[in-house]
Each structure stands twice: as C-alpha cells, then as structure tokens.
C-alpha cells in the first residue's frame, strides 16, 4: 500500500454502512470469488511463513562467502544474495518477521483505537474532546519522520518501531468505532437494553461491537497493509534491524546489488506486492459486501417493481380504456401532447425486459390541468419521465409515440430534446429538498437555465428570477436569491422549483406529486399557487398524483392508471360523478372510507 494511503481515509465511507453489517455477511463474503481468492492467498502466505523451517533447510542468516550472488537452481531454489545467504529461506523467514511486525502494529492500533472509540462514543464528556484532540494530533504527524526520530533515540528495533507506528495509526480505528458508537448510543434498542438493567459492558459487547465488527476487519486489513509498506520502506532505506531477515532488508540488499543481480529485488518485491494486492482485494470484497447489505431497500424496490409488472400478467393488446365523452358543448381546445401506445421497459440481467408502462395513450389539451392518478408503482411517474425523456438509467421507451404539437419526442435526438426540456416542457419534482443542487445558490440555479434557454444577460436573468420568486409567493426574493438550498424550508424550496419550472415560459409543466412531501398546510398553498400560475400564464399542466383530493382541487381532466395502463380517462366532473372502471371505483372507495369529511366533488369545486 502506498505511503500516501493514510489513517482514516476510509472512515467516512465505512461508517454509513456499518449498521447493516450482520453475521450473514460472512456467509455472503464466502460466495464472493475475488474475496475468497484474496483470502486464500493471504492464508497461504501466512502458512508459508509459519511453516518456514519445514520448507527450507537453510539458515536465513547463514552467510557464506563462497556462494555469493548465485543464480536460482543448484541447491539454492532462488539463488543467494550479496552475502551468500539463501534467498528462498530469507523470503520465508522474512515473512515471519515482516508479517508479525505488521500484526503488532495493527493490534496496537486496533486495541487502543477500539477502546478509545468505545469510551469516547459511549460515555462522551471530557474524554471525547481529549481523544478527538489526540487523533487530530496524530493525524498531523508524518509517520515516517516520527519513526526515523524514534529510531534515532531508541535504536533499530522492528518491534519498537511497529508499536510506535501502531500508536500513530490509532485514529484509523478510533474514528471508525467512535462514529459508529455515537450513532448507536441513542438508538432505541440500546435505550431499551439500558432501561431493562443490562450493564454497560454487556451493552457494549452485545449490541455495539457486533455492529462494527465487519468494518473493523476491513480497516484492520488496510492498516495491516500500510504497516507492511512502512516497515518495508524503513528497512529498505537501511534503517531496520539488519540482524533479522525481513522483506525490507532483502530489498535493501537487492537494491545495492541492483546492477549485478536484478533478481534479488524481484523476489521480496513480489512478496510485498502479492501480499499488498491480496489485502487490498480482500478489503475491497469486504467493502462491496458491506455496501450491498447497506442498500437492501433499493434492491427491494426494484424487485417489487418487477414483481408488480409480472403480476400485471400478460398485457391485453386491445385498449379497453373507459373514455368519458365530453359533456361541454364548446369545441375542445387543440391537443398539446398526444401519447399513443407508449411502452416503457427496463432490461433485466437475464435478457428479458420488464415493462412498467404498456400501451398508454393520453391526450392533453392546451391550457388544461390534467391529472394522472394511480397507486404507487402504477407507472404514472415513469410515463411522466418518458415525456421528458429522463427515465432512470436502463429505462427506455420501447414502443409508441409522444407527440408534442405533432413532433415525436420519442424520436428526436438528444440535442433537440435538450432544447425542448426547460424551454417547452418543464418539470416540478416531488421532493423539493433533494431536487436543488446543494452547492449552488438559488440564484445561480434559477438564472442558469434562463441564460442558456432565453439567451438573456446575467442582470436580465437576475431581474427575471427575482420577479419569479415574488410571483411564487416568496416573501423576500433578494434574500432567497442569495440563499443556499439548505437554508430554505421544504415549502420555500418547492416554490423555488416551481419558479424554475415556469422560468423559461414552457407550454407544458409536468408536476410529479408536487405536494406529497410537504406539510398539509403547505400542500394547500402550493396547490393554490399552481392554480394561480396556470390561470396567469395559461400553461398546460400534467400533474401526477395519487390523491383524488388534488385532482378535485385542480384538474380539468383526469386519467387513471393501473399496472402500467390507463384504465379510465375523461373530464374530472364526469369521472368523479360516474366512475366506470372497477379500479377507479376501488380507488374512490378507498378514499371515502378513509376520509369521509372530504365531501362531494360538487361541494369542493364550487
């Protein structure tokens, strides 16, 4: 491992994954081919070092003037070095010292770091601040220089050097354990244990140590590698104890004889590299498994989606959507968006394609607010994203056409699509806080699209942005303009996103559950705002929601989606008055059961 690899590099990565580590991790790790290979190599190396006397008959320190720098073969398996010592034997015995030294450093670092982390994390108080000070101090010290100084004072002993290096590496374990423990300290299950009279020691060993076990092994393998690298480096410079065989001493000897016998560098070099690579691969495999187990939700979501799609069964080719005829006598407004036979799918690992939207046809008229309703997983958001051509990675439009004023969005190239996005179709996301770039001010995020889309100057864009912020009901536009997303509330952030959506005067705004993530009182305000903007700007809105209340509040027409298909569509008034499709009816039943206070559609609308 390189010198640049330092204490604590890993800690932030690992701590987030800690909580998911459980005993089944070991079982899964054993199925990871790379991890197993790396582990086997490590075991072999350790065994070779332990069984050194059985594998060679030469004394690793047996100097012989008569057999200096002999090549491999004839008695000496890998030849002899500059002092006539057997290279194979030195390699084996060197492994003993090198590995034992690195183990010593790792154990010192682990014992001190884990103990310190547990005490600081569990009891906190003054020890916590003292310990964090000491770790900062240790991390500011360049290890090699400290070791050189220590050697100058204490003499060249492998063990002393490795103990001191172990102390320098304490932060690697301390930070890991401290983060995990202080995270777990106030968890309910720890409180429960405390309340039921379990002793602190028992809580620590039973509930806390099990959580950090796997990350500690991971960290230990990395620290072990760094300890080998540093020890070998020092010996290589000639600062080690020359009387014992180590891989570093062999490299030192090989480097002095580099011109006469380059092989001498190769063998200890290979030993160091193979051990280092095996340790790194072992750590990587372990980390991969840790990350896997930390991310079950995402996988489950995908499985659920696939299952839902399968449950939908064979899709009926005929389009049996219930269509409510127009009640009004006036001629309907012209079509803005016409979706015909749209299918969206995600290719799976086994080569099949999971369809999440199938044979969806949808008409949206200029100036209307169209609701797309359905339960979670019905494909409504996927439909919305396909109109923007912003499906998640892997997703693609399989069939059908999406006509915006007669132009098929499913076929235009990406440059053209970029022009349409923001300019003609805009998007209001569901979760306001995660949809603003945390690193830029609201102002930058509002003005950037206007400057690229409308080609206006910076000052002009700012003036427009401030006006928009006022329009969407932000009390102090100047201040919000200069704010960062984390300084806003959810409701404010959603207003900013709405301002961003209408900033380039789009024809169509796609709002994906724009109120779901907000407080109830804010929800009503955001719906009012959308209605106002729609009236003022005459923009067409496609609103994706699972909430019939939102539809009743806002929409002129509505389409109901189930299992990737539209089952019923028509004007809100007639669909609410006379739902035909059984799925629509069941949705209404569900609402009425839950909230009878909502009242009838007519009352709400009037």
């Amino acid at each position, binding site marked *: 491992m390189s010198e640049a690899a330092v204490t604590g590099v890993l800690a932030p990565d690992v701590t987030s994954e800690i909580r998911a580590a459980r005993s089944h991790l070991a079982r899964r790790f054993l199925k990871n081919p790379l991890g197993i290979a790396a582990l086997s190599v490590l075991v072999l190396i350790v065994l070779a070092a332990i069984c050194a006397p059985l594998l060679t008959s030469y004394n690793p320190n047996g100097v012989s003037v008569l057999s200096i720098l002999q090549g491999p073969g004839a008695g000496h398996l890998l030849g002899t070095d500059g002092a006539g010592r057997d290279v194979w034997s030195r390699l084996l015995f060197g492994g003993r010292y090198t590995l034992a030294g690195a183990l010593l450093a790792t154990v010192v670092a682990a014992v001190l770091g884990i103990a310190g982390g547990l005490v600081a994390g569990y009891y906190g108080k003054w020890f916590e601040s003292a310990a964090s000070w000491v770790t900062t101090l240790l991390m500011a010290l360049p290890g090699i220089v400290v070791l050189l100084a220590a050697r100058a004072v204490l003499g060249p002993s492998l063990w002393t050097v490795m103990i001191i290096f172990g102390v320098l590496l304490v932060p690697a374990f301390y930070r890991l354990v401290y983060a995990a423990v202080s995270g777990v300290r106030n968890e309910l299950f720890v409180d429960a244990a405390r309340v039921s009279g379990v002793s602190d020691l028992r809580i620590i060993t039973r509930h806390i140590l099990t959580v950090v076990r796997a990350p500690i092994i991971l960290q230990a393998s990395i620290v072990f590698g760094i300890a080998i690298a540093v020890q070998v480096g020092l010996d290589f410079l000639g600062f080690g104890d020359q009387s014992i065989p180590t891989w570093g001493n062999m490299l030192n000897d090989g480097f002095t004889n580099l011109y006469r016998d380059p092989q001498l560098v190769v063998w200890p070099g290979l030993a*160091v590299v193979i051990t280092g690579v095996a340790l790194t691969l072992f750590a990587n495999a372990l980390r991969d498994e840790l990350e896997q187990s930390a991310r079950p939700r995402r996988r489950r979501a995908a499985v659920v989606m696939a299952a839902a799609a399968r449950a939908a069964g064979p899709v009926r080719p005929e389009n049996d959507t219930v269509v409510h005829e127009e009640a009004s006598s006036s001629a309907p407004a012209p079509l803005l968006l016409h979706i015909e036979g749209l299918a969206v799918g995600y290719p799976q690992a086994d080569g099949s394609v999971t369809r999440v939207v199938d044979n969806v046809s949808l008409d949206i008229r200029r100036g209307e607010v169209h609701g797309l309703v359905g339960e979670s997983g019905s494909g409504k958001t996927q439909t919305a994203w396909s109109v923007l051509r912003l499906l998640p990675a892997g997703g693609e439009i399989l069939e059908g056409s999406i006509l915006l004023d007669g132009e098929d969005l499913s076929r235009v190239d990406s440059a053209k699509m970029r022009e349409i996005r923001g300019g003609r179709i805009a998007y209001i996301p569901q979760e306001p806080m995660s*949809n603003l770039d945390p690193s830029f001010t609201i102002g930058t995020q509002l003005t950037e699209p206007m400057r690229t889309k409308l080609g206006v100057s910076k000052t002009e864009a700012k003036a427009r942005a401030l006006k928009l912020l006022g329009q969407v009901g932000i009390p102090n536009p100047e201040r919000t303009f200069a704010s960062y997303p984390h300084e806003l509330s959810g409701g404010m952030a959603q207003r900013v996103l709405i301002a961003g959506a209408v900033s380039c005067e789009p024809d169509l705004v796609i709002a994906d559950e724009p109120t779901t993530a907000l407080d109830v009182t804010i929800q009503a305000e955001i719906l009012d705002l959308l209605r106002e903007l729609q009236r003022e700007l005459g923009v067409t809105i496609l609103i994706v929601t699972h909430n019939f209340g939102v539809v009743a509040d806002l929409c002129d027409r509505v389409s109901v989606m189930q299992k990737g298909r539209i089952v019923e569509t028509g004007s809100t008034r007639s669909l609410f008055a006379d739902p035909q499709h059984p799925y629509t009816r069941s949705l209404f039943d569900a609402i009425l059961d839950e909230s009878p206070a909502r009242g009838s559609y007519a009352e709400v609308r009037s």
Partner: protein
Amino acid sequence: MLTFTVRRLLYGVLLLFVIVTLAYLLLYAAAGNVGRTILGPTATQATVTLKNQQLGLNSPLISRYFSWLGHALSGNFGSSWFTNQPVSTAIVTRLQVTLTLVFGAVIVSAVLSAVLGVWAALRGGWVDRIIQVFSVLGFAVPGFLIAVFLVRIFALQLHWFKPTGYVQMTYYFGGWVRTVTLPVIALSIGLVAGVAQQVRSSVIDALRQDWVRTLRSRGISERSVLFKHVLRNAGGPALSVLALSFVGLLGGAVIIEQVFGIPGLGQVAVLATSEGDVPLVMGLVVAIGVIVILVNLTIDLLQGFLNPKARIS
C-alpha cells in the same frame, strides 16, 4: 467566512505548539549525553563536558525549551550540532526541493484522479474495470518499489530521465524535468489510486441524486450538469482524501528522495535522525508542522467554497 478562517488558523497554531513542545521535551529527554554523541567515544571527559556547556545543555530542560521557543519565534532555530550550519538555512534550501516534488505530485494526482474517476464513473464497462485494477495495484504496491521499477526502465534502459540527482528549475529547466518526472510519478501513483476511486464513487453517487434529473429537466447542457454541478458536489469527498493523504505524501517523499538521491527534506531527515542532531530534527518538526497546517487550512477553505454547508460549522 473570515471568522471561520481565523478560527481554523488559531486551531492550527495551537496544534503546532503542542506538537513542537512534545517533540522538544521527548527528543531532549531521550538524547542522552549529547557531547559524547557528537565527539565520539575517543574524546576525553573534559572536552565532552566543555561541549555540553557550549551547547547550553547544563541549564534545566524547561528553561532551555523556553529560550529555544523565544528564538524560534524570531526565526532562529539554532545550529546543527555536527555541521554548525544554521538550521533554518539547512532546511529552507531543501524545503523547496521537497515541496516541488510534493506539490507536483498533488497537482498531477488531482488532475489525473479527476479525469480517471469521472471517466470510470461515466463509461463503466471495461474502462471502469481497467481503472479499478490500476487502483488496486497503485494502492497495494509501495511507492518506492514503483520508483525502483521506473528507474530501471526509464532511466537505466531508455535513458529518458536521470536515475538520481536534482537540477534547480531556474538553473536548467530541461534538466529539472529530467530529474523530477520519475519521483513525481512514483509519489503520485498511490495517491491517484486512492483519489480516483473516491472521485469515481462520489460522481456515481452525485449522478444518482434527484437534483441531477431536475437540472436536466431545465434543459441545461450535459457538460454543465457534469462539470459544473456534479463535479463540484463530488469534489468535497475527493478533496478530503487528498488532504488526508498529504501528510503521508510528505513521509513518502522521504523514501522517494532516498531512492533518487534528491537533496530534499527527506535527506535532512534521514541524516539528522541517524546522527541524533536534535536541533535539526526540531527544525524539521516545525517546518513539516507549518506545511501540514497551511495545507489543512487551504483544504478547509476549499471545502467551504465547494460545500456551503461546511461554512457554518
């Protein structure tokens, strides 16, 4: 922002003070009979005592420490016990050499890791896999072994670069390039491996964020989404890794300088510690401490620039 900077700076100075104090007390307490060490076993007891007197080693440790600290604050770090050269001169001339190597390595690594990390994150597939393998090797193989390998191939066989030595940049630029290229590469490889991995995973992470979809929905160019927004968000964690690696890089430079015979701080460190030249070692501790603190401060400020949330805390 100003209070943030001042606070970080004060914290750094305090840290430096603690390190320097500990180092001074430990080194002198462990130094033993200094006069004997300097003059060797053949000197008479009388000359040894005289030497100790000359060096002012007869007064108590604490008063010596405060007098050293007073002088150090005015830039006087005393003289080497063995060469009588002023410590500040010995260190400053070498410091530039080491800083050239270390900053060269930092710049090379930052650029390479950004390019490789982003490339691996975006392309996936074989590009990603090759970069992964490279990362494992770069992480697992000690820098000095890479250095030995580089010397054999590019200096001894191909004669593209010099195997040892150092030429001042201002003296002869071509010569400078031929002497620093290999050491900088040897120092960078391990760093690139670590930082590129971090860039890769934070870019992948950032690309999964909701705001990326929203930015795209605004019709912003893909270049701006990637290089302005995603990279800025991914930069923070990568910068942390770079900062943490910096201290290790200074240590690595010590070994690399030995391999290439470069007269930098590493050589002073090796010489001073093997001879037990305590004033020189103390000078090194101060120099390295100051560098580490300045670098950490710079990184903190950069973090504040990249991540608005970091500015408050």
